[in-house]
């Protein structure tokens, strides 16, 4: 992940800013600029998600690529936000704690960094609620 690419998505990464189609009342996170139901008839507006939801499925990563290898083992999950959409995120908890259906809420954490002299990537993770 390079700097301009990360910066572009900061609103979504820091604050769970996604979108909502006002035409069909569907929420999107990650944000979509084209509604998958209404397509060009859709009316897309920015929407900030509350940041609470539940774990739909999960894993604990023991073997990770370079950027994440110092953090292993870490819990990864698909979280269904209360507004509907699902996203992939880390859950900050002991691997034995995470369960399907567990309620979670968003927190602000470091996602990674570009080595000791590069930028630090911050973003959203979840903790048991």
């Amino acid at each position, binding site marked *: 992940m390079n700097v301009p690419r990360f910066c572009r998505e900061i*609103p979504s990464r820091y604050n769970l800013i996604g979108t909502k189609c006002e035409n069909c009342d569907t929420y999107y996170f990650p944000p979509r600029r084209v509604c998958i139901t209404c397509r060009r008839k859709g009316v897309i507006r920015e929407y900030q998600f509350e940041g609470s939801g539940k774990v739909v499925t999960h894993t604990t990563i023991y073997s990770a690529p370079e950027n994440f290898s*110092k953090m292993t083992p870490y819990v990864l999950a698909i979280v269904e936000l209360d507004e509907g959409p699902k996203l992939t995120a880390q859950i900050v908890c002991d691997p034995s704690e995470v369960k399907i259906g567990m309620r979670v809420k968003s*927190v*602000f954490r*470091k996602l990674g960094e570009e080595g000791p002299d590069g930028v*630090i990537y*911050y973003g959203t993770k979840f903790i048991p609620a």
Partner: protein
Amino acid sequence: MSIGITTYGVYIPRYRIRVEEIARVWGDDPNDIKKGLGVFEKSVPDRDEDTATIAVEAARSALQRSGLAGVDIGAIYVGSESHPYAVKPTATIVAEAIRATPELMAADYEFACKAGTAALQTCLGLVAADYIKYGMAIGADTAQGAPADALEYTAAAGGAAYVVGKSHVIAEIEDTYSFTTDTFDFWRRQGQQYPKHGGRFTGEPGYFKHVLAGARGLLHKTRSKPEDFDFAVFHQPNGKFPRKVASTLGFSQQQVKQGLVVEKLGNAYSGSSLIGLASVLDVAEPGSRIFMTSFGSGAGSDSFTFRVTEEIGKIQDKAPSVAELLAAPIYLDYAIYAKHKNKIVL
């Protein structure tokens, strides 16, 4: 029109290490340490936490406690001696993470353990002069102590955020006073991982000289006496120093107790006195008067007097209290603690 704190928020990481565990590694007698320092355990950040994430969580907690939104905040100043970047502000990260950008003033402060109260004074000035409606001052740190250094027993992680404004004031800031000299009691050179300190020189010529002079200066300026206050909060690098200055100044241990969080938290540096103040606000009642003196090596102290208003009851239970944040910790052994603190270079 009164001016003061309109909301506050605190964040303390979940992890702790006990004095016994650090002493075990370095062959110290834990009872000597606990007796000497008056500290039993200290907070430790998670592997993905740093001063910026702690500052953001404290700032979000402050907004959650009040009805304010990020867009209402006209200035953010973050005081820390462990900013994640040497160049690149923590304040901008906080501003973005609470959606306060782009129309705001922002900068990072550094003045050892009192950078957070220096930020508070800046916000006070800007609000008083009507440049901004609300200013946010944050003191947050993931304090570094070199392995085997005495500092390692206390250097902790945590932060507090305060919003200063003129409406919905929960604690009026009556007055402030600072005492500053050029003193070499504690420092960290550019590019160094751990700070150095002057050993016993940090006591009398550092902490005591500046805290006593600062506190006396404000008592004199406001024509008050220690007994006029319900609570007193002093910078707490350990459990002994704040108790000692309190009794020297004529404050009772009862006045100090609620604001003394160091025993279970450790010294959260820029967060230290501000978390102590938050612990007081968590329980304060309308009309309570609070005296606070911070201290930063290098050296200086910032003193404040606060008068709690009727508004306090509306927000006290709207965000986690300091007591709640200190409850139910997860204890680490030294090896995992060393990993959390990047003491093992990977």
